[in-house]
C-alpha cells in the first residue's frame, strides 16, 4: 500500500453494536474532522447486511454537510466530484463478525509458538489448536486435531534463519495432508512466518490447496522477535475472510484497502504517539464484544485483543474470565453471584442497551473496570521485559492514556470517564488522559498506511478529547491527612496551593489547551512514580488537573459499606457533583438475593429519583433517612473540602455528544 495524498476521506468503522463514520477533509490545507455519524450495526438480525448501516450513517453525514456521498444504488461516490459530492478515499475497519478460528503450528512452545501467539494477539482470532514437536501426538492425531478444529486460518511458524529445515517441513506436511482432507468450501487460509528459506517450498506444498500468505520469520533467532510483518499479513487474512462474508464482501470491494481490523488501528496510533512523543502510551478500548489494549513501552508497541472481554456480547465471558469477586470488588452495595450473572447474561441479550438504574450503572462500571484491569494484567508480561516489572506490582507510568469505547466515553461526564479509566488501569505517576469520544482512532488506523499525513493532522487537531493530567501517588496514604502538596502556577501567573488528603481526589479545572507549571510533592513514605517531588508543565482539559491522593494499589474497602463511602465520593470529587447516597437497605443482606434482577425494585427507583440521580442533576433532595445512613459510615470527606466550595468542572464537549 503506497503513501498517497488525497482530499476528502470517509472512514467507517463497523463495530459489533455501532457503525461510526467520520468525514475528514482538507480545511485551509490541513486535514480536519468535518462531520461524524453513528448508527446501529446492521450486520446481524434482521437485515444481516452491513451496507444498510453504512447507508444510514452516510446519510447522517450528508444531512449535516449537504454533501451527497452515495450513488442511487448505495455505493460510495469516489473520487470527489466537482460539485463536492463523493469523497476521494473511502476506508473501512471492522471489529464485528466472527473471530478467525486459528491453528498454530510451530516447533517449540516457548519459542516460535510463543511468538506466534503474540503476533496473533494483534487481531481477532481464537486459537483453537496448537501443534508442536513436543505435543506427543502422532501425525494421524495431529491431522485429526486440525480438521476437527474447523480452522479459518493455519499459522505455521518455526525454524530460525539458517537453522534446520526438516522439523518445519515435517509439521508442514501434516498440515498439507489435513488440507487435502478438508472438503467443500471450508479450506482455511494459511500464513507462513517461519524460516524464510522454506518459503518457496511452502508455495509448492500449499499453493493449490489454500490461500497462502507469507510473512518474514517472526523468530529469526532466539533473541529477536519480529512480529510486524506477520501482523500486516494477518490484517490481509482478516480482510480476505471478511470478503467471503455476505455484505462485507461488497464492502471490501468498495473501500480503498478492504476491511481492516479495528484493533490494528489502536496499535498504529499507540505506536505513532509513542514514537512522536518518545513517551510510554497506552490505548484501551472496551467495546461490546472485544477488549483491545495497545501499549507503546520503551520504543516497542504491543497489542492485546481479548474477545472474552466486552461489556455487551462478551459480558458473560468477561464474568467467567475475571470472576464474580472481581466485579463485586467495585460494587458499593451488597449483591450475590447470581445477581451479577443475571446482569451479565441479560446484557449479552441486549448488548447495545444502557443501564437505567443506579445499581445498573454501578454494575456496568464494575464490569468495565474489571475488564480493563484484566486487559492490563494480560498485557503486563510484555511490558515487564522492558520495564523490569517483576519487582513491582504497580502499573508502570504511562505518560498518555487514551480510553475508547462507549462505556468510557459516553458516561455523560468526562470526569467520570477519566475516573473509570484511571481506576481500572491504576495509573501511576503523571499521566495525560484522553478520551476517544468520536471514535477517531479506528478511522485513523485505516489511513495510516496510505495517508499518514492525515493521521498526524487529525490527531493534532484536538480530535481526541483531552480530559487533563492526572497526578497519582503510590503507596498507602493516611486517610484524611495531607498527602499531596500541590503548587500550580498558571500561564497568567496565578499561583494556587492545595493540600490533597489521603483517600481523596482534587481537581483544578485548568481548561482545554491551557498549561500550567505544577509542582507536587508526596507525603512521607509515598511517591509519584518513585519520586518524592515532581515539577512538570501539565496540560489541562475538559476535566483539568487531577490530583489523586488515594494511593496505589487503590485501597478499595473490602466490604460494601466501605465502598459505598468511597466510590460515590470519588465520583463526586472528580465530577464536581454531589455524591450519590447509598440506601441502607443496599448494604445489608436483607435483600432477597435469589430474586435476581428484582433487586432493582420500584422502591429503589423511587429512592434514586428522590436523590436526583448519580450526579444530582441540579435537583437533589436527599431524604432525611438516607442522610442519616451516610453518617453511620466512615466519612472520608474533609470538613474543609465540601464539593460545593470547589471550582465547577465544565465539560465543554458534553454538549457535542449526542
Amino acid at each position, binding site marked *: 500500500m503506497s503513501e498517497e495524498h488525497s482530499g476528502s476521506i470517509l472512514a467507517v468503522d463497523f463495530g459489533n453494536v455501532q457503525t461510526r463514520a467520520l468525514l475528514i477533509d482538507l480545511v485551509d490545507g490541513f486535514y480536519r474532522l468535518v462531520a461524524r455519524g453513528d448508527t*446501529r450495526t446492521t450486520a446481524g438480525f*434482521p437485515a444481516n447486511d452491513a451496507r444498510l448501516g453504512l447507508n444510514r450513517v452516510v446519510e447522517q453525514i450528508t444531512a449535516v454537510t449537504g454533501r451527497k456521498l452515495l450513488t442511487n444504488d448505495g455505493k460510495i461516490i469516489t473520487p470527489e466530484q466537482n460539485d463536492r459530492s463523493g469523497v476521494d478515499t473511502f476506508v473501512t475497519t471492522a471489529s464485528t463478525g466472527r473471530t478467525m478460528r486459528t491453528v498454530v503450528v510451530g516447533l517449540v512452545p516457548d519459542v516460535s509458538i510463543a511468538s506466534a501467539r503474540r503476533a496473533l494477539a494483534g487481531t481477532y482470532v481464537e486459537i483453537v489448536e496448537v501443534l508442536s514437536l513436543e505435543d506427543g501426538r502422532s501425525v494421524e492425531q495431529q491431522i485429526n486435531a486440525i480438521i476437527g478444529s474447523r480452522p479459518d486460518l493455519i499459522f505455521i511458524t518455526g525454524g530460525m534463519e539458517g537453522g534446520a529445515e526438516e522439523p518445519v517441513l515435517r509439521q508442514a506436511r501434516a498440515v498439507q495432508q489435513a488440507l487435502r482432507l478438508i472438503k467443500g*468450501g471450508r479450506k482455511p487460509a494459511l500464513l507462513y512466518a517461519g524460516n524464510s528459506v522454506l518459503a518457496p517450498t511452502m508455495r509448492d506444498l500449499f499453493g493449490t490447496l489454500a490461500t497462502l500468505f507469507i510473512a518474514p520469520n517472526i523468530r529469526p533467532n532466539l533473541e529477536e522477535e519480529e512480529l510486524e510483518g506477520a501482523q500486516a499479513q494477518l490484517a490481509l487474512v482478516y480482510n480476505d475472510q471478511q470478503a467471503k462474508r455476505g455484505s462485507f464482501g461488497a464492502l471490501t470491494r468498495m473501500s480503498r484497502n478492504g476491511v481492516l481490523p479495528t484493533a490494528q488501528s489502536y496499535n498504529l496510533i499507540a505506536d505513532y504517539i509513542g514514537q512522536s512523543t518518545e513517551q510510554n502510551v497506552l490505548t484501551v478500548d472496551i467495546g461490546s464484544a472485544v477488549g483491545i489494549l495497545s501499549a507503546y513501552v520503551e520504543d516497542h508497541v504491543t497489542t492485546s485483543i481479548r474477545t472474552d472481554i466486552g461489556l455487551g456480547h462478551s459480558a458473560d465471558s468477561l464474568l467467567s474470565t475475571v470472576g464474580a469477586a472481581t466485579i463485586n470488588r467495585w460494587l458499593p452495595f451488597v449483591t450475590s453471584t*447470581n445477581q451479577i450473572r*443475571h446482569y451479565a447474561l441479560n446484557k449479552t441479550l441486549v448488548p447495545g442497551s444502557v443501564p437505567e438504574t443506579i445499581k445498573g450503572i454501578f454494575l456496568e462500571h464494575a464490569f468495565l473496570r474489571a475488564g480493563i484491569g484484566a486487559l492490563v494484567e494480560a498485557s503486563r508480561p510484555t511490558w515487564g521485559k522492558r520495564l523490569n516489572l517483576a519487582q513491582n506490582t504497580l502499573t508502570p507510568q504511562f505518560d498518555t492514556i487514551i480510553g475508547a469505547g462507549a462505556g468510557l466515553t459516553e458516561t455523560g461526564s468526562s470526569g467520570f470517564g477519566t475516573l473509570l479509566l484511571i481506576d481500572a488501569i491504576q495509573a501511576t505517576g503523571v499521566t495525560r488522559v484522553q478520551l476517544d469520544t468520536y471514535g477517531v482512532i479506528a478511522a485513523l488506523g485505516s489511513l495510516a498506511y496510505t495517508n499518514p499525513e492525515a493521521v498526524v493532522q487529525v490527531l493534532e487537531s484536538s480530535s481526541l478529547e483531552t480530559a487533563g493530567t492526572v497526578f497519582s501517588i503510590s503507596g498507602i496514604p493516611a486517610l484524611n491527612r495531607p498527602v499531596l502538596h500541590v503548587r500550580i502556577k498558571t500561564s497568567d501567573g496565578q499561583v494556587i496551593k492545595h493540600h490533597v488528603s489521603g483517600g481523596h481526589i482534587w481537581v483544578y479545572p485548568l481548561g482545554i489547551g491551557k498549561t500550567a507549571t505544577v509542582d507536587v510533592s508526596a507525603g512521607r513514605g509515598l511517591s509519584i512514580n518513585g519520586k518524592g517531588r515532581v515539577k512538570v508543565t501539565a496540560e489541562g482539559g475538559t476535566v483539568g488537573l487531577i490530583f489523586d491522593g488515594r494511593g496505589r494499589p487503590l485501597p478499595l474497602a473490602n466490604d460494601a459499606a466501605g465502598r459505598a463511602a468511597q466510590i460515590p465520593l470519588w465520583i463526586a470529587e472528580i465530577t464536581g457533583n454531589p455524591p450519590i447516597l447509598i440506601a441502607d437497605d443496599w448494604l445489608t443482606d436483607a435483600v432477597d438475593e435469589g430474586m435476581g434482577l428484582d433487586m432493582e425494585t420500584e422502591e429503589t*427507583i423511587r429512592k*434514586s429519583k428522590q436523590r436526583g440521580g448519580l450526579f444530582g442533576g441540579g435537583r437533589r433532595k436527599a431524604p432525611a433517612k438516607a442522610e442519616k445512613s451516610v453518617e453511620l459510615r466512615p466519612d472520608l470527606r474533609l470538613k474543609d473540602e465540601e464539593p460545593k466550595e470547589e471550582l465547577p468542572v465544565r465539560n465543554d464537549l458534553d454538549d457535542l455528544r449526542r
Partner: protein
Amino acid sequence: MPYYPDQRYALEMTTIQREQTLPEDAIGSVEVRQGASVNLRDIVARGILPSRYIMVDAAGQMRLKKSEDLGDILKVSVGDLVTAKEVLAEAPKGRRRVVAPVDGIVADINNGQIILQIEPETVELEAGLDGQVIRIQQGQGVVIETYGSVVQGAWGNSRRVIGTLKTEPNSGLESLYGEDLDIQFRGAIVITRRPLRQTGLDVMEDQNLGGIIAPSIEADLIDSVLAVKGAVMLTEGFGSLRMSGLVYNMLNNFNGRQATLEAVQPNRWQTRRPEVIINPSGRGQARAIRPNLNQTLTVGTNVRMTRIPHAGDIGTVVNLPKTPILLENGLKVLCAEVESVTGEKLTVPLANLEVFGR
C-alpha cells in the same frame, strides 16, 4: 436524524424468510429445487458430519521403495466404501496385502498413505416451515419463504421442535408434575407466564413436552435447560422476569395451533433470533405484510422496553426530545418519552427500545 431501533418481531400475518442450514461442519447436499413447495417435515438437505481419519501406511506395509509404486497395487480408489479387513492394496500373487482396519470411506491416497474416514454420521435437515424454497445455498441448505405469525424471544437452548402451542393449565405448568400422562400436552409447546424452574423441566421430561416458552430462568438452571431434549425459549431473559403482556396475549391467541419453535441460542455471530413461527390456518397470503427493516422511531411507534426497571413493558412513543437527557443514574443519552400501557409516562434511552417489526 432518524433513529433505527433494534427489532424483535411480534407480528401477526407477515412474510417470513428463514434460512435452514445443516450444521456448520457437515458436508452435504440440498435435496430440493428452488421454487419447490415444502412442508414442515420435508427433508430439504442431507449431510455427513466429519469423523475421524485413520492413516494406513500402505507403502510401508508393502515394503515399497517408492511410495509412487503403491498406485500399481491399489485395490481401492478415493471415495470407495470399505469394510474392516477389506483388502486395500495387494502385491502380485498375493504375497503381501494391506487391509482396512475399520469400516469407512477412502478419503485420500497420498505419499504411500491410504487415509480412511471412519463411517460418518448422517444428518437430515427438515424444512421446519410450510412454504416455498426461494434460494438454495449449495451444500448447506435453503431459504424458505412462508407467511404466518412470528413471536421472537430472547434466548433459546439450541433445539427445534414442531408441535401444538398450548397454554399452561390455570394451576401452572408445574401442576402437571406426577399427573397421569395428559395426552393433550404430549409433544406440545407449552406457554407459561411464570419463570421456568427445575420442576418445570421435570414436567417437560415427565409429560414428554415438545417445548416450553417461558419468560425467564435463573442463571443456575442454564446447564439443565441446555441438557433437556425439548426446545426451551425465554421471552425476556435471566432472573425472575415476567412475560411481556403483549407476547403472552399473542401466544395465548394461538393456543391449539401448530407452530415451529426455533429455540436458537444467541451468540455474537448468530444472525437468527429464538422464535416461534405459527403457520397460517388457511387464511390468504395476501394479508401478509413484510417486516419493515427500515422502521424508524417516531411519535406513535409502539415499543418494548428492554432494561430494568421497565424490561418487557410495552408502550407508545409520545415524544422524542432532540437533546440528550440526564438519567437518574447520571448517564446523559438520547431518550424517548414513552407512555406505558398503564398510562405512566417514562423516559427511556433510545438504546433500550425495540420495535416489533412494522
